[in-house]
């Protein structure tokens, strides 16, 4: 396991592979080996109960998919009583993903979870900002700073990872805002906004009209963001977007990520994360790398 161990700020992980928020659940424990995972990440939790979006919530696209699940949430009480204990029982370190529709919502969830036992917060800023006309809250550097600082102050003394939205003009600017506010790592990135059309009815396939695009089709887009973000900051970056094999994971490391998250590929192949971890030593040998860290940010662009 030593060759796959990585360090993200204060977080020591036995492997660089973890699930992406919303694409994993304790339900997978009978299907895949949990002890290979560096961490497990919860679905984003909001402070209040939320019902999520109307059906249809999913649409497959070529080599990818759109989702408009809309983050149904059990609320803080349900999360503390049911969700978190189920995640803790899995074994790996638990990263809790939190969300909100305004800055104060994030601070409320962080404060409400401050006394619970888990390893880190991941702040999902790809939620529509109700105070700013519904654009992703993570497109506003000031909102990013306020959320990062606030969650650090109120959420107990634990690392804060900021999960960036890809729907921005300059990922470097947002990444620096998060770093300046004390983020210990960045996850790059969440889903890209997309649309699927049913030609016969001339209606959108999703109940919510638009949705978040994920899966193999977005891998080049996410790789580009990882390169740009990791070159803009000193804190570690967790790469995410279309990863479905150990080669994909290694490409993200080379582009600048220190760890990776696997989302959509879990649906296609529920054993994929542990298979990636098991395949790392052979790939490292082939690439002449000592360990995973050896690959990080080695992309030669000059």
């Amino acid at each position, binding site marked *: 396991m030593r060759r796959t161990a990585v360090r993200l700020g204060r977080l020591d992980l036995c492997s660089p592979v973890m699930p992406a928020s919303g694409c994993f659940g304790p339900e997978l424990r009978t299907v895949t080996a949990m002890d290979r995972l560096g961490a497990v990440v919860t679905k984003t939790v909001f402070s209040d109960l939320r019902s999520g979006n*109307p059906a249809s919530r999913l649409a497959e696209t070529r080599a990818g998919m759109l989702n408009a699940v809309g983050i149904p949430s059990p609320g803080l009480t349900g999360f503390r009583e049911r969700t978190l204990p189920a995640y803790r029982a899995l074994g790996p370190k638990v990263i809790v993903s939190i969300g909100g529709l305004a800055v104060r919502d994030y601070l409320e969830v962080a404060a409400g979870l401050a006394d619970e036992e888990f390893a880190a917060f991941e702040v999902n800023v790809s939620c529509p900002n109700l105070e700013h006309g519904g654009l992703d809250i993570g497109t506003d550097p000031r909102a990013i700073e306020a959320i990062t600082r606030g969650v650090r102050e109120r959420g107990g003394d634990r690392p804060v990872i900021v999960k960036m939205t890809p729907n921005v003009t300059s990922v470097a600017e947002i990444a620096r805002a998060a770093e300046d506010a004390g983020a210990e790592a960045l996850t790059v990135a969440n889903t890209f906004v997309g649309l699927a059309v049913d030609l016969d009815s001339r209606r959108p396939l999703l109940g919510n009209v638009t949705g978040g695009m994920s899966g193999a089709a977005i891998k080049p887009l996410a790789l580009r963001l990882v390169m740009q973000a990791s070159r803009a900051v000193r804190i570690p970056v967790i790469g995410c977007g279309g990863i479905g094999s150990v080669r994909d994971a290694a490409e993200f490391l080379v582009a600048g990520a220190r760890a990776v998250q696997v989302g959509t590929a879990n649906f296609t192949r529920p054993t994929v994360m542990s298979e990636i971890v098991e395949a790392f030593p052979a790939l490292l040998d082939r690439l002449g790398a000592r360990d995973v860290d050896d690959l990080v940010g080695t992309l030669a662009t000059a």
Partner: protein
Amino acid sequence: MITTGFLDVLPASEEVQPTWIDAPVLSNVHLADRYHRLRLAAPLAAERARPGQFVMLTISSPVLALPRPMAVHDVDPETGTIDIIYGVVGVGTREMAALRPGATVGTLGPLGRPFAPPPSAPGRALLLGRGIGICSLSLLGRELHAAGWDVLVVASGRTPQAVVGTEELDAAGVRVLRVDDESGTSAPELLRDLDFAPTYVTACGSARLEQLAADHAHTAEVQIALEAPMACGLGYCHGCSTGARTAQAEAPLVCADGPVFRYRPATP
């Protein structure tokens, strides 16, 4: 989707223990119309599957991102096989039809809550299925028949050729009424007067049959199997919402809370 009443979540009888396997394709044959039958070697799923449950099938392909939910039509625990009957309707099922023995299909299952016949003494069961929906009822029809129920399966399709998945029922001696649109025999008004007072009614595969089943709710236990686009099949992606009316914050999920639901009329 039925709007005259509520879809209640059936109690989970036992914890579902799904397994994942790269299941070898044993056979994949064309039946009739757009329908095919796929046999997979999946011993644990074959042993554990209950009537109404489904599997998620991943066909290895550079264009597909998601597995496809398919009802377990038949199992043979002795040889460790499960059979799926599927209709070719789009890109995934087209690729499924091209599978040959020797290929493997990623198979996750069995999944979902099975049919839950009322625990009373054997009564009369009316199973309403249309198209591919008939396949969700095959195991149930045979189990009830073997347990001493008086079973009538209504198998409906667009054409006589589109009524598939009934041979196991026939072989087991279950009564099957085949109806189709071409001959006009599938009209709901005709199916309303079957002279068969059921104590248990199930429906799968068409809104009209669901409504027909719902009309029995004052005198019978009514259970309906739903479909929705799915990604995980296990209940964690929250993609397969029923959107049904309930008191809960989030509507039930078809994969983990269903696919079989109990219908309760709005007016008791």
